Each structure stands twice: as structure tokens, then as C-alpha cells.
């Protein structure tokens, strides 16, 4: 397919995933704040850090002050993460970006999927979304989540399962790996450095983290109800059957790329990216045999985030006309 079209497919997938994960993260944080177990900044600051927009928030919202009340102000943080047009990862920007990329390739997407994308965009820009946000915050996040899930489902059930869809999913999966890795990293650090450690509180926090990644029930099934920091980290890193774990996403991304560019098709572009993704997959598999607690987890997650960043860059150069 045309490289530019592949690029739009890839970014469309990333924006859909990003919108969903942002909405999920914010909804889980609202719930966590209501539990009242953590200081407010312990709930909201990680949201900013995970988004990767800490510097932006610090300079523009807090005037460079790390003790500023805004770090713990859920309303300020949510406004920044939902409506702020200058924040590149806000929901407003993700929905616009998703729709912009979809519109650039609307003849490639199925009509049904395009219509939901367009409706979500019109809704979020229209009069209803701000009212929903103001009066029923959870409904607002749920609307975003349900529609992004609907889009991904429609793509699967109404589009040709060929290159275009592979590129969309490659975008979804690589975005998801980073999201899972950053979310786990930030919270792992915060939870294991609580001033006073209390088992009930800690269990609540880990479950909240799992909910932010849609993994609460799935984790409990795998762990027979036992909640531990090591268990949660292992689940989110290594659980092959969980579609948001790092191991699952990296392997699936590799499989998708193999469909686009088979390992033995040496005359086709994409070989470097494929090899890099294969190495990352093998590396993640090797790590799952090791202990996943303590400071080592931070190094592991940092490596994953950095590698995914490099893989996206390489993909852009080799296949997306970058």
C-alpha cells in the first residue's frame, strides 16, 4: 500500500488507543481519589508523568513550581488531560488526531468505522460533551472508551484483514506497550515508596492500577485473588494471554509486522524494524524468568519504552515514507 496511507493507518491506530487509555486512566484516577487513601498529588501527579507531559504542565500550569497545588488538583489535571488543545496528548487532541488521520484515509477504512470516528469527533467538539463532562464525568469517559472500542471492533469485523488493518493494529499495539510500561513504572515507584505501608491500602492501589489498564478482573483470575506488587508487575509485563501486557503487545506487534513484511522477504523494506522488534520480543521473554521486583523493574520498563520509541522511528523511515 501507499506509504503515506500506511502512515495515516499507523497514527490513526495510535490516536484511537491513546484516547481510550487516557479516558481509562482518568476514570480510574477519579475513583482512586475518592478512596482517599493517597494524598491528592499522589493520585494526580502520576497521571501527568505517565502522559509524558510533565514539563509542559510544570511550565504552563504551575509556573515551574513543583509544590504548586495544581499537581494535586484533580480538576486542573483533568482539564489539562481532556480539553487542553496545547497539550499534545489531551483527549481533545487525540480525538481530533484520530479523526484527521481517518479522514485522510477514509476510503481505506470501512464506512461503518469512519462514521463512528466522525460522530465521536463531532460529539467531542459539540455542545453535549462539555455538559456530560461537567455533570457526569464518568459518563464522559465511558463515552470515549466505548466508542474507541467500538471503532477497533468495527475495524476488525468490517475491514479487509490486509495491510491497512495490520498498520492500524501496529499503531494500537505499540501505543499500548508504552502506555502499559509507563503506567506500571510510575505507579510501581509511587506505591512502593509510600510513607507508611499498609496492606489494605496497597492492595487497593494495585487494583486501581490494574483497572486503569482494564486488567483488574483478569489479574484476579490469574492470581486466584492474591494481590502483590510482584504479582501485578509480572502480570502486566509477562502475561501472554492478557491483551494489554507488554509481552502480548510486543509479540502481537511482531506478528503483525511479519504479515506486512515476512521475515524471509529480504527484497522488501522493513527488515531493520522487524529485526529490532524480534529482539525486543526475545528480550521481554528472557526477562520473565527473572525476578520482577525492586529497582530492576524500572530499568526493564525504561528499556521497553526506549526500544518502542526506536522501533516507531525505524518503522517511519522504512515503511511509512518518513
Amino acid at each position, binding site marked *: 500500500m501507499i*506509504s503515506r496511507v500506511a502512515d495515516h493507518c499507523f497514527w490513526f491506530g495510535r490516536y484511537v488507543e491513546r484516547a481510550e487509555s487516557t479516558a481509562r486512566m482518568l476514570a480510574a484516577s477519579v475513583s482512586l481519589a475518592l478512596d482517599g487513601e493517597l494524598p491528592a498529588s499522589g493520585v494526580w501527579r502520576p497521571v501527568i508523568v505517565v502522559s509524558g507531559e510533565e514539563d509542559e504542565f510544570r511550565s504552563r500550569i504551575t509556573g515551574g513550581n513543583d509544590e504548586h497545588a495544581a499537581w494535586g488538583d484533580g480538576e486542573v489535571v483533568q482539564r489539562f488531560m481532556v480539553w487542553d488543545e496545547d497539550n499534545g496528548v489531551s483527549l481533545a487532541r487525540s480525538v481530533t488526531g484520530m479523526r484527521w488521520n481517518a*479522514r*485522510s484515509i477514509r*476510503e481505506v477504512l470501512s464506512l461503518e468505522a*469512519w462514521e463512528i470516528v466522525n460522530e465521536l469527533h463531532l460529539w467531542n467538539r459539540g455542545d453535549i460533551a462539555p455538559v456530560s463532562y461537567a455533570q457526569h464525568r464518568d459518563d464522559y469517559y465511558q463515552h470515549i472508551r466505548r466508542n474507541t472500542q467500538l471503532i477497533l471492533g468495527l475495524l476488525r469485523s468490517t475491514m479487509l484483514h490486509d495491510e491497512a488493518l495490520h498498520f492500524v493494529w501496529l499503531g494500537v499495539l505499540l501505543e499500548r506497550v508504552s502506555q502499559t510500561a509507563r503506567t506500571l513504572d510510575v505507579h510501581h515507584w509511587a506505591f512502593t515508596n509510600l510513607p507508611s505501608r499498609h496492606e489494605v491500602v496497597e492492595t487497593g492501589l494495585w487494583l486501581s492500577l490494574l483497572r486503569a489498564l482494564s486488567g483488574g478482573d483478569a489479574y484476579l483470575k490469574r492470581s486466584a485473588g492474591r494481590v502483590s506488587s510482584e504479582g501485578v508487575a509480572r502480570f502486566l509485563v509477562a502475561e501472554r494471554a492478557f491483551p494489554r501486557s507488554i509481552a502480548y503487545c510486543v509479540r502481537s506487534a511482531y506478528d503483525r509486522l511479519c504479515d506486512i513484511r515476512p521475515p524471509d522477504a529480504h527484497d522488501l*523494506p522493513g527488515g531493520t524494524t522487524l529485526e529490532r522488534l524480534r529482539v525486543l520480543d526475545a528480550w521481554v521473554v528472557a526477562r520473565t524468568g527473572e525476578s520482577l521486583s525492586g529497582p530492576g523493574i524500572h530499568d526493564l520498563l525504561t528499556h521497553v519504552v526506549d526500544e518502542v520509541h526506536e522501533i516507531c522511528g525505524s518503522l517511519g523511515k522504512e515503511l511509512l515514507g518518513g
Partner: protein
Amino acid sequence: MQSQSQHQGPVSLFDGYPALEGTFDEMFEQGTARPPFARIAQLLSKMTTDELARAQHLAEAELLQQGVTFSVYGDARGTEKIFPFCLLPRVIAASDWAQLEKGLQQRLRALSAFLDDIYGEQKILAAGIVPADMVLGAAGYRPMLRGIKPPGGVRIHISGVDLIRGANGGWMVLEDNLRTPSGVSYVVENRLLSKQLFPKIIDAARVHRVDHYPTRLAETLRSVAPSIEGDVNAVVLTPGPYNSAYFEHSFLARTTGLELVQAPDLFVDQDKVFCRTTRGPKRVDVIYRRTDEAFLDPEVFRPDSMLGVPGLMRAYAAGNVALANAPGNGVADDKAVYPFVPAMIEFYLGEKPSLDQVKTFVCMFDDDRKYVLEHLNELVVKAVDEAGGYGMLMGPQASSDEIEEFRRRIIAEPRRYIAQHRVELSSCPTWISEHSSVEPRRVDLRPYILTSREGPWVMPGGLTRVALKRGSYVVNSSQGGGSKDTWVLKEQQ
């Protein structure tokens, strides 16, 4: 209709329909539906204004949700608008259509012959039928294309010929669009809406379908491929999502199954055109280009432009790629060349023109210019190289300042202007939301003609544009125009 209300009968939709003085209304004659449309008018009249308002609202919401929109230029927020749609159909009788179809095919054959001649031997100029200085001085004439034969021998693959009806109801050609006519996607989309809104009426009316246009378009494009070996790779070339007609470009790509490309996706190597794909370069055989020809190839047309595909014209000249439409067609749809189309029909085909056209004064001719300058307040003056309702003077409605401005322009550049008497465009019943009523509004018709190696084919339908503003004669979407679904009726069985 009016008689019903006098008898206090049930209120009908068309009660008190206020026909325009001196204007041919296509549906009604003195309050009675014209015979071919009696049944449709009767079925429509049973709808209440509430039902119509609701249906109109639904239709507009649907267009917006589906993104059937055009981008508004100069709007940084990327605002998109729907092309206003009137849900009441414009209906064309089978007998009228048969005559139009014949006339359009004839016109396209003559215009094609004219272009072949102008970029070839120029016999029509030698014979003095069309003034050589006018043709060779036209902005759309491309001397560098002389001697180049387009692949498949076709130059006007896709055309849209604007038709109007005068005060006596006779059909006339207003202008030929032989470069990149747009609007056909609305024809297909409008029909989908009609089917949703009036399933029973459209079923009873027996209307020609229009949804096979994309299939015919794809066949037309494939038919002109330079080589018949292997699969033909035809693509649609768009300037991109910021273009006001982007919806249509994307629509055409989707419904023909062809890929939608932008200029940077293409490159030329050894006079062959390739597309940059995830599997390396892929040969391109046919390009349905929806970009202006000035932006096709910076090597040829606009050296200052970064847009376009460098080398594309070399590949075209070498016969390695077909361009639809062919570059250089602008010389044939120039508004100053238009008055000579009937003479072309006689010269090339030896036939009498089937379609009338509007008497036109060409300002580069001394007698015509004298008449125009003396009658500016009665005439419509148009720049020969502008479209979309721009560069136009509506004499009867213009201020004296505007008239004097055009007088200066015509004297300064007579070649750029033509003038016509204002035609009392025919009207159709139109739903006016602000008044919750049906009122007459003026319309034109753009049918679409596809020309393959086998000759021209006329889509049985077309884009009806309607001047939604009361009293307006200008149907262009940029000037407050909307569209209607056009129902071409089948022959009675």
C-alpha cells in the same frame, strides 16, 4: 392545488405555491402539476410541513455525521460544512432526458474532435470557423502539448455540462466543464437520502438509478491505459484533505476501489510513473487527477511551485501514463470559445446541434463589445477563465459603481470577458426551512458524461443546483446555492 384550499379541503403541501412571474416552473403550470409529474406531486403533497421539516433535519444530520462535507477555505480550525440539500427532488421527464442525452453525446463528440484538432492539424482554424487568435490566445491553450496524442485517444474522460431552462422551458447549455468538474458524489449521496426519506414515492416514480457511476468511471479509466499487459493500476490524485472537494475525491476512490494518492506519493523514473508503497515502487498507468493542471508538474507548468509530480508531463508525452482529464482541455471550455461549439458540431460531425445554447457576446469582437458596453445594465458579464460564480457581473441587479468597474475591466482586457442576457432560469418547488414552506427557487443541472475508447456515456441523472436565496439566479455553492436529487424518469411501459 390552489382549488383544494378554496374548497377548504385537506391542506396540501403545495397549496398557495407562489409561482414566479415570467419563469418556467418545472413541476407546476398554473397551479397544476405537469402531466409527467402528476403522480409524484400528488404523493409529495400528502406530506405535512412538519414531516418535511423533520425529514430535512434528518437529512442534514446524516450528511454531517457521514462527513459528506466540504472544507471551508481560509478557516484555520478546519471547519467543514455540508453542501445545503433540499429534499424535494427535481424531476426530469423521460422524453426530455432522451433529447438531452443525445445532445450531450453529440456535444462531447464535437468537443473531443475540436481538442484533437487544436492539438493536431488545427483545421478548424485554417477554415476560419473559429478565430485562430482567440483559440491560440486562450489561457487554457497549452502549445507544448501540440502533437501529443493521449493514451487511448480520449481527452475528455469526465465532463460536466451545465444546462439551464429558459422562460419557455427549453433546455440550453450554459457552459462546458472539461477539466475537473466536481459534484458527482453528491448525486450518489443525494439519491441515498431520497431512498431513505421517500422510499414509497421514489418506488412509484420509476427513477433511473445513478449508483453505477463509479463502476462506469473505473471502466472508463481502465479503458484508456497505455498498455493492456497485466493489471491496470489506475489511481485518483487529490490535492489532499484541505481541498474543498476532498470528500468527493475520497468518495470516488472508495466507490471505484482505486487508491487515492497525493502528488508526493508519486514519482517519475525513466519517463514512467510510480507510486511509493510499503513494498517499494509500484507502476501507475492511469491517473484520474483532481488537481488543477497548473499543479501537475512543476517542470512544465509552474516552475515556482513545490506542488506536483516532477516529470509527469514527460511520462505523459512518452505515452506511458494516461491523465484523466487530459491537460490542455481548458481551451475547449473557455467561455469565449463556447459560442463556437454549434459551429464545431457542424464542422466535425456534419450534424445540426441538438442542444441550444445561450446567445453570447464576445468582448474581443468590436461589434459585440460595443453592444455590451451599451447594455451593461441588462447583461450578465463573465470572465472567461473564472468559475464558481466569481468574476461575474449581474447587470440587472448591479450598482452603478459595479457596472462602471466592469466597463473599465472590459475595455482594459476585452479577451477576458463575454456577456449574455440574463436567462430567467427555471424554478422547482424547494423546501425553505426558515419559512417552513415550499417555494419556487431557480435551478440548473449538471449531468456527467464519461467518455471511454467506445465514446460518451451520459449518467441518467446529474447534480441539480438550486439558488436557495429568494430572487437569486446564482446556484454556486460558494454563493448560497444548494443541491437536490435529480430524478430522471424511465420511459412509460
